[in-house]
């Protein structure tokens, strides 16, 4: 394997981790009415990076809230091109990542999509239906364009698989919190800490828990083991119900609790 380059988002995450800060990455569905204001509010409230969802017609890793948001964004006319165009104008102080399904990447073409991300100021990509074995061509294009590809690790992974996933991960390792799709849950699944602990034991790439981290208390619990959290459905629900202000208040609340 060639030498592992550390991209700008990962460098920033490592530096913050070294300074004792837990990392908070809210997810916002791009193209949803008000998404840019919500994104700025999340940054102002203390987000360390933002994951922008590029909606896809068939989001198999997503539960009802993000499905509903994706559908609404598509009905509002959102496309990968329009979202990246809008992202370019955001001018925020934290790294921006995109989350999208592989057909969006495949259809555009690997090199072209990576170039589109780079020119929109996006530094990282998360593609939840592109597992390690299929990721080679995209990762080659992403590496060349300076896009950090975040890899997901799942509770079902046997021990021998995790080091290979972590070795291919750039930016951070997305430690999937539970067996299931995105969405809010009453309690943090017991699998969340267990997987994060296994990952922390084998990699120094930042490990963030996402999927099923639903409120400030759960985020704090996750951060006892992990380097941070990704929060999706809980953020998107607030955007759908209360707009940018509700997103800002929620992120500020989570920030305060995980910093305590």
């Amino acid at each position: 394997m060639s030498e592992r380059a550390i991209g700008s988002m990962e460098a920033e995450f490592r530096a913050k981790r070294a300074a004792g800060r837990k990392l908070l990455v809210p997810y916002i569905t791009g193209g949803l009415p008000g998404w840019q204001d919500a994104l700025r509010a999340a940054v102002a409230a203390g987000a360390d990076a933002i994951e922008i969802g590029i909606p896809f017609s068939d989001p198999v890793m997503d539960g009802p809230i993000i499905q509903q948001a994706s559908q609404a964004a598509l009905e509002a006319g959102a496309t990968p091109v329009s979202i990246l165009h809008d992202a370019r104008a955001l001018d925020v102080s934290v790294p921006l990542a995109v989350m999208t399904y592989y057909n969006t990447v495949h259809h555009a073409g690997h090199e072209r999509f990576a170039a589109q991300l780079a020119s929109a100021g996006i530094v990282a990509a998360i593609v939840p239906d592109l597992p390690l074995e299929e990721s080679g061509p995209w990762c080659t294009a992403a590496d060349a364009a300076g896009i950090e590809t975040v890899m997901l690790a799942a509770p079902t992974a046997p021990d021998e698989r995790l080091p290979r996933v972590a070795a291919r991960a750039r930016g951070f390792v997305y430690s999937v919190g539970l067996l299931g799709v995105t969405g809010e849950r009453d309690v943090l699944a017991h699998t969340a800490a267990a997987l994060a602990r296994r990952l922390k034991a084998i990699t120094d790439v930042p490990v963030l828990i996402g999927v099923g981290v639903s409120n400030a208390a759960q985020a704090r619990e996750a951060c006892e083991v992990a380097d941070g959290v990704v929060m999706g459905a809980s953020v998107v629900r607030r955007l759908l119900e209360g707009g940018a202000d509700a997103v800002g208040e929620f992120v500020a609340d989570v920030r305060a609790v995980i910093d305590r």
Partner: protein
Amino acid sequence: MSLMADPSATGRFGEFGGRFVPETLVPACQELEAAFIDAWADPAFRAELHHLLTSYAGRPSIITECTNLSDELGLRLLLKREDLNHTGSHKINNVLGQALLAKRMGKTRLVAETGAGQHGVASATAAALMGMQCKVYMGAVDVERQELNVFRMKLLGSEVEAVHSGSRTLKDAVNEAMRDWVATVETTHYCLGSVMGPHPYPWMVREFHRVLGEEARAQSIALLGDVPDVAVACVGGGSNAIGLFSGFVDDRTRLVGVEPAGGAAVSRAQPGVVHGMRSYLMQDEYGQVQEAHSISAGLDYPGVGPEHSYLASIGRAEYPNVTDAEVVSAFQLLARTEGIITALESAHALAWIVRAAPELRGQTVLMNLSGRGDKDVAQMMDVLGK
């Protein structure tokens, strides 16, 4: 080597196939692949499946020569009667194989998607037979137009969940079944209903349907003294077509898979990735999957199994499409001339034969009659008037 040999180690047929699933499901797909390879090489597993196919499903299915319709069309038409299998379609072949395999793997629960309800009914049947739990996801549109099959599944002890997301048809039922599987993978087997999805499904489901192609080849030779000139089947995901083609792919037989005009993924020849596979896919300029529209719920699918994309790309099989109106005519024609009420899905194959009859003059044509039409009678009553 056969043109329909095993796929590559990454589950590819040419450049199609693969395993594009969430990380959570990768170990499950790997485990399934290993279990299938092991079972398929095990004479005891084969014997048990053979026993079920012969003593429960009613195999082998017969071949019927359509003398009346042959005269009318000016060709020699044979039907492979998968409609006479238990549960009324070819779907039982695959489901018995997968349910046996799931039991062997220690799984206690099946989830399945269904369009017309044929695969759902077959899955519910196998679950009842083998004492497993079963949950079937079905698009809300299809629940409405196939209420008889919904009731059948419930009678058989399965839970049926109507899917209200997206186009509310087969595509969305697959999404919801995959979401269920992501959450329940430790106890649950996803009993996928066609030659689609992530590796090893397209390969495994083909192997479970190979029995119908092998029977059809032997029966054709017994009846005709030769393989047929043309073999025809309808294609949604493409499982009954792949079963039929497997019997003739290395012969001179012309292979024809018939898609609905509103779900003609192969004609558009645009590769995409959804439901775990790279294959031809109906999609817009940004890669959003488009909704298929067909009179038959079972073919209402914007993609197609990857091996069909491969066979099309190398020119070994052809994939024309027919309109709903042609399908309705063919449905009536077979009932009137041969006394057989076909499923609307299988009527697509006949619709193409009727259209192509002038160029097929004098040829032997073997069509897979993949399912019976009882489930479609209520819908056709609305279309044709009482």
